[in-house]
């Protein structure tokens, strides 16, 4: 206790260097904890994108690619699947529900998804949470659109507003379906998933806006209104569909059946497995991030070591005085060890507190900008372990100047000259 008091006072006596060391150490702890926090949140938000769905089915492609375009709305489908195949699988006796998805159009860079009202009933995210409406309801008319939360927030749409869908992806598409504007009929509550960034219309509406188009180009002179009235709006093909089964036991059987489907090449994936696989790919970046923050902590500790070691020379007198009033060499060593421990402990404390302060300020911003929801929870077991490792490294780092001080105090005796 007395040594702790001495260590504390001695540190206070060297305010400037100690504060600087503390500052850099705290920053490095802050970085380490924040990276860990963001990594965990990103991972859980990622795994929470889709739940309750047993299979995702699309045209044959890679499993990650299918996941990317059907769930994350990234990239494009190389092939579609026919309505007939979809019908056939949807009517399988093990299938409880299906949600068809038709992609390819966009609105100011956000995906427009053709689907059915089942989307709002069966699509689940997080821990089997269904979608819910902040305002309005599912599409009722052919030209109704339901907006994801961030589409509405970022583009400032409210119920009843008119939205024009563009053909293809991209912000500045030249081909607009401007003759058939959509009316905002519902706005979904935020989910923190790609749903927030999507616009939802009916499959029939997808067909309707492409009436009078061929190969992605508007046929000049075609009278859209007349054609529309006569057209059969049953979709010919869709991009992918989500499947919910009556019994989980049937998952692998149905998956195999779909993959061996003779009508056309199809791929059925287990979304959980595909999400895992995708995360492992991203995981490399995650590891790199963690490695960098570990390096930063090591740099911080090296800084502390440098300060402690270089202060030893100026402190020979101090240590000799302590020896003369009866301090044993191990007292001297403990004194230095306590200093490094105190510094590291304070840095861990400051770093943790700063992390919470930063998160409290930044969480709404991150949610608004990245759609990543960050919760201010208690420290996780792994974060405690990281802090423990920093503490341990700090104490170990203190052993080096501690040992030198111990040796110096034996060699110098009581007579250090200035």
């Amino acid at each position, binding site marked *: 206790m*007395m040594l702790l008091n*001495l260590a504390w*006072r*001695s540190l*206070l*006596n060297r305010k400037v260097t100690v504060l600087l060391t503390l500052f850099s150490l705290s920053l490095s702890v802050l970085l380490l904890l924040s990276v860990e926090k963001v990594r965990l949140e990103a991972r859980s938000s990622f795994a929470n994108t889709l739940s309750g769905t047993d299979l995702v089915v699309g045209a044959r492609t890679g499993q990650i690619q299918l996941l990317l375009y059907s769930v994350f709305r990234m990239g494009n489908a190389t092939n579609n699947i026919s309505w007939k195949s979809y019908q056939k699988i949807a009517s399988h006796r093990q299938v409880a529900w299906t949600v068809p998805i038709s992609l390819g159009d966009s609105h100011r860079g956000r995906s427009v998804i053709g689907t059915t009202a089942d989307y709002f009933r069966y699509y689940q995210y997080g821990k089997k949470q269904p979608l819910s409406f902040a305002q309005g309801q599912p599409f009722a008319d052919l030209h109704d659109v339901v907006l994801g939360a961030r589409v509405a927030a970022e583009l400032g749409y409210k119920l009843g507003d008119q939205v024009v869908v563009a053909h293809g992806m991209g912000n500045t598409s030249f081909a607009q379906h401007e003759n058939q504007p959509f009316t905002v009929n519902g706005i979904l509550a935020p989910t923190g998933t790609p749903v927030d960034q999507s616009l939802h219309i009916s499959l029939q509406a997808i067909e309707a806006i492409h009436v009078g188009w061929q190969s992605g180009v508007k046929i000049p002179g075609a009278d859209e209104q007349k054609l529309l009235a006569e057209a059969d709006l049953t979709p010919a093909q869709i991009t992918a569909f989500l499947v919910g089964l009556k019994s989980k036991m049937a998952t692998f059987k149905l998956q195999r059946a779909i993959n061996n489907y003779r009508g056309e090449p199809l791929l059925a994936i287990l979304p959980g497995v595909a999400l895992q696989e995708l995360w492992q790919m991203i995981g490399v970046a995650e590891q790199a991030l963690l490695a960098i923050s570990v390096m930063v902590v090591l740099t911080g500790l090296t800084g502390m070591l440098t300060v402690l070691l270089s202060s030893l020379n100026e402190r020979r*007198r*101090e240590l000799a*005085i*302590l*020896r*003369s*009033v*009866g*301090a*044993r*060499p191990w*007292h001297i060593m403990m004194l230095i060890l306590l200093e490094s421990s105190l510094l590291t402990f304070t840095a861990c404390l400051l770093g943790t507190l700063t992390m919470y302060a930063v998160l409290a300020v930044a969480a709404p911003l991150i949610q608004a900008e990245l759609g990543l929801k960050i919760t201010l929870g208690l420290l996780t077991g792994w974060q405690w372990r990281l802090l423990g490792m920093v503490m341990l490294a700090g104490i170990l780092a203190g052993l080096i100047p501690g040992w030198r001080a111990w040796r110096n105090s*034996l060699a110098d*005796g*009581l*007579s250090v000259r*200035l």
Partner: protein
Amino acid sequence: MTAQLADSAIALTDVKFGWPDQPALLSIDQFRLLPGERLFLYGASGSGKTTLLNLLAGVLVPDKGNIELLGRPFSQCTSQQRDQVRADHLGFIFQVFNLLPYLSLLDNVLLPCRFSVRRASRARQRFGSEEAAARYLLSTLGLSDPALFKRPVIELSVGQQQRVAAARALIGEPELIIADEPTSALDSDMRETFIELLDSQVTHSGSALLFVSHDLSLATGFSRSLSLAELNSASTVV
């Protein structure tokens, strides 16, 4: 054997010390300091003074011969035992910079009590508390102004700092006080005052005093004086 029964505070017999492969620094056939005795040891630089002090403090061990401190075979002790003896029975005053700058005046004086249970309990026995002992010693050394206690010790004058160091050496009444040039940073009239104060306090506590200095004019106040150069047959004139 307790310190009270020891027939000498310091006894050196045939002590030799030198660094390996170098001529001996110190060679003393016989040296004694009696309990409660006040000895002036004249030591110019190069006379082996530092070596002698480190030997007496137990930081160095002689190559040959015997050092007895308060009747204990000091040089045969383990370094832990020597550390214990130093903490319990020795008080030191150095030339300058005796104080820890980050401790208050009072905490500086109390330092030996933190490292020695014996000195702490002796201080408590006589004065009720360690702090009362420190305040008493400081006031007898002319440092009773409460304003002084609040100031950082580095703002004290050199004379005041040396008196704080003396109080620290005296607290808990160690049997032996070793003062190494304690007055050389003081001006001449303060020197005499300091020595008088130190002398009366040492008499009061019954400690032996070994006062080492290169200033022979200070020797007059001491009951005995010796020259280290004469004592040390290994001393080489620099």
